[in-house]
């Protein structure tokens, strides 16, 4: 008996070790990827001024893209501090899941990294009585190309070269095409290890759109959530790709900027044809989004981004997250809350939170239209 009891003690001590180890690991995994805690602690006075609760009350459910999660969390915090009668709940899952939930009528609005497809608009007419689902561009952000090449601190690439790297045509870092773009940089003959997302992802789709639009015959794949090109290696989630790039010499991969800045991963400057190569920063992404045209009709504000923009300092690999709502026929019980909440997110104070947290605000001209549409929602 005595022996047994000792063993039990030993076992539970080991168990405690294992459990605490697990806690440490999960703590690393769930790192919040906002740039800093600034702005996340208290709703500023200015923000409160832009929040109008009107007759909004009750529970507002929303679901969708995880790309805008950090921004939405801050918005909800500020909003609920002022409008205590409303409970906003954003389930950060994925664009696809958000749209499915929206078209089943279980959420007030959805967040999506790409505009509704025609068949999804068709589906939405069942939920939006007398109307249809529309896209409101709300959050922008750069997709950073992170790299890890021993001894290289600064790297410039253009779209065709980037495409050739990602579809396995360029295999070494000292390839002539890369050398030509980086005069004076001592590139090692390391093998290139390109990482992409293993699961379907809106980030992959947006990078695909950029390459398809700008890389010419180097990239002929249709943009899709699933990685289309041969070769390369895959990792799960932006966090997984970033971890591999951080770990592997010769690696290159793509993820939202916050993953690069929080882990000190160097990012590629893009040679767009402008005077100087453009770095991946929120401001530069905003400049590229400013070149976008509105492609949607009526109150739909889906954007057609100008990926080939040569504007000075415009970083072209961007992602825009839309809030999807009904133009007419929103559910009566959540409509006031949807209008009041989106009014706040599109307001100056709401958009300011974006630039403070590594996102890119929507350019003023487009944002003005977003506000006009929100006012007409019914």
């Amino acid at each position, binding site marked *: 008996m005595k*022996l047994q009891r000792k*063993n039990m003690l*030993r*076992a539970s001590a*080991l*168990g405690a070790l*294992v459990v605490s*180890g*697990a806690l440490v*690991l999960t703590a690393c*995994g769930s790192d919040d990827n906002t740039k800093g805690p600034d702005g996340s602690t208290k709703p500023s006075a200015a923000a409160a001024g832009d929040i109008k609760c009107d007759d909004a009350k009750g529970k507002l459910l929303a679901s969708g893209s995880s790309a805008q999660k950090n921004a939405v969390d801050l918005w909800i915090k500020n909003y609920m501090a002022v409008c205590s009668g409303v409970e906003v709940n954003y389930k950060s*899952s*994925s*664009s*696809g*899941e958000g749209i*499915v939930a929206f078209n089943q009528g279980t959420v007030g609005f959805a967040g999506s990294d790409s505009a509704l497809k025609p*068949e999804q608009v068709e589906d939405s007419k069942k939920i939006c009585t007398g109307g249809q689902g529309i896209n409101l561009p709300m959050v922008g952000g750069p997709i950073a190309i992170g790299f890890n090449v021993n001894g290289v601190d600064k790297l410039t690439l253009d779209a065709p070269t980037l495409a050739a790297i990602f579809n396995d045509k360029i*295999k070494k870092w000292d390839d002539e095409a890369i050398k030509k773009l980086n005069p004076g940089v001592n590139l090692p003959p390391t*093998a*290139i*290890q390109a*990482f992409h997302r*293993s*699961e*379907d*992802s*809106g980030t992959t789709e947006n990078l695909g759109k950029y390459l398809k639009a700008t890389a010419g015959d180097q990239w002929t794949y249709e943009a*899709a*959530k*699933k990685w289309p090109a041969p070769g390369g*290696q*895959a*990792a*799960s989630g932006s966090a*997984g790709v970033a*971890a*591999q790039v951080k*770990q*592997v010499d010769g690696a290159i991969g793509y993820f939202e900027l916050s993953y690069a800045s929080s882990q000190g991963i160097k990012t590629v400057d893009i040679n767009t044809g402008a005077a100087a190569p453009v770095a991946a920063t929120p401001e530069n992404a905003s400049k590229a989004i400013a070149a976008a045209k509105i492609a949607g009709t009526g109150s739909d504000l889906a954007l057609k981004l100008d990926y080939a923009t040569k504007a000075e300092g415009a970083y072209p690999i961007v992602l825009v997250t839309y809030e999807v709502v009904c133009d007419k026929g929103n559910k009566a019980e959540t409509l006031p809350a949807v209008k009041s909440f989106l009014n706040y997110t599109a307001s100056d104070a709401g958009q300011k939170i974006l630039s403070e947290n590594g996102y890119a605000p929507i350019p003023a001209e487009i944002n003005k239209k977003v506000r006009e549409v929100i006012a007409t929602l019914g």
Partner: protein
Amino acid sequence: MSFTPTQIDTAPPVSRSEQSTGRAGDKIFSGLSKGSGILLLVIMASIAAFLTYRAVLALSKNEGNFLTTFDWNASANPPVFGIAVLLFGTVVSSIIAMVIAVPVAVGIALFISHYAPRRLAGPLAYVVDLLAAVPSIIYGIWGALFLVPQLGGLNLWLDEYFGWTYVFDKTQVGVARSLFTVGILLAIMILPIVTSVSREVFRQVPRMNEEAALALGATRWEVVRMAVLPFGRSGVISASMLGLGRALGETMAVATVLSPSFLISLHVLNPGGGTFAQNIAAKFDEANEFGRDALIASGLVLFLLTLLVNGAARFIIARHKEFSGANA
């Protein structure tokens, strides 16, 4: 409390039939156990029915061949998907895991049951059992952050000296996020279950058999070979099948470590491949309604594969029973 004894004193003598309170208890217990049995069957049947229903929905619209297409694009329009790569990856990674884990597990089990001094055997058994308590996502994170970088050297070595075997020929640049690494990780994960079941079986070898062997002048190893292993064979097989079941269905650890691709290659050191469970985890989030049905169809195949493996195990055990010494 003081009048409790009086009550007992005045209680009328109980008749024999009343004394056997077992009747009601018996009925309740047999009802409960029968109910549990039926419940299990109902759950299994409803899982199978659900999987089949959703799978049929998906299969009717598949533009590819479900068995031979090397792609998984079920949420696209038109949907194209096939399980060939997943079936291959699941089977290969599980085989690698079994080849590594079973001999090691049998070794550990023999050491604990027959070789180790009692003071060491207890703690060792606990440590092995603790391996089973680690959640699979932790194995995944450990695998991705520690095991994968550490295996780079082993991969180069295998490629250089065993590249001629084709299987260990590494033809593609990349870190060790391969089916081989997944196999090693799965081996570690199934080690505890195979070990602890084998250990229990080895402990039940009749003392008489062992002593008889010793009396005939057998050495330790000969006792193990002639008395212990034949007796434990069917137990070890069922232990391995339990482990195989876990390896076939493992999700998070595989999804974290593997670099999936839709190619079939016997070069197990190359990054690439995929398993059923990993593919479901990777595709489920962004899948539309139809894409989910397609994933469920692949889940049905995994379900059938597991059934098949268990059936085969039972068959083997049944055939070996007469030689096992269990009836001696």
